[in-house]
């Protein structure tokens, strides 16, 4: 499991938003108070058996 997907799975975040991408994937954005990083996860079929993590990106403050 990737770092950002693991954060989502364990609930280790304070803020979440999601955006559907033109290619059908889902962009999940997580932030954690006091941490100031932006955690992005591109994923298909989130929470489905066919879930596939495409990529993730962690933006430092």
């Amino acid at each position, binding site marked *: 499991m990737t770092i950002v997907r693991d954060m989502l799975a364990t*609930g280790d975040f304070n803020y*979440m*938003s999601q*955006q559907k991408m033109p290619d059908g994937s889902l962009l999940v954005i997580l932030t954690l108070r006091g941490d100031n990083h932006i955690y992005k996860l591109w994923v298909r079929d989130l*929470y489905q058996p066919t879930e596939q993590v495409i990529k993730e990106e962690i933006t430092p403050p």
Partner: protein
Amino acid sequence: MAKGRPDFSPTAVDVILRPEWAAQEGTDKQFLAEDVKTYRQLVETIYTVPAGRKLIITDLIGRAFATAAANADLNQIMEITCFTDTTELVIVGGNGGLAVTLSKPLVILAGALFSLRTYCNANHEMNVAALASGYEYVV
């Protein structure tokens, strides 16, 4: 201790690690669903509550505005719906936006899928946004 003043002492301050704090007080949670939509299209943000946790949603806030200036003075009707798996928990609507504090907060148990949806219910294109806030704690 003087009346009205907290009984703080420098030697009584605890340093608590995040997981320990979360287990005692809960972790603040906010979920946002926002996008540009037309009539009856929806934006959704989903989250499965981790094992051993409980999610409590206490507040819902919504906002909607027309994407075209020509429609700015029309009704900007939007709707927020919260689901857990297939059960509708709450449906609220407003014109231009809304803010609701739930006197009976939504409780979503571990393993359940929480879905925050916001709909455009106007007959023109709008930017709609819904924010659900609350907290999550270890059960």
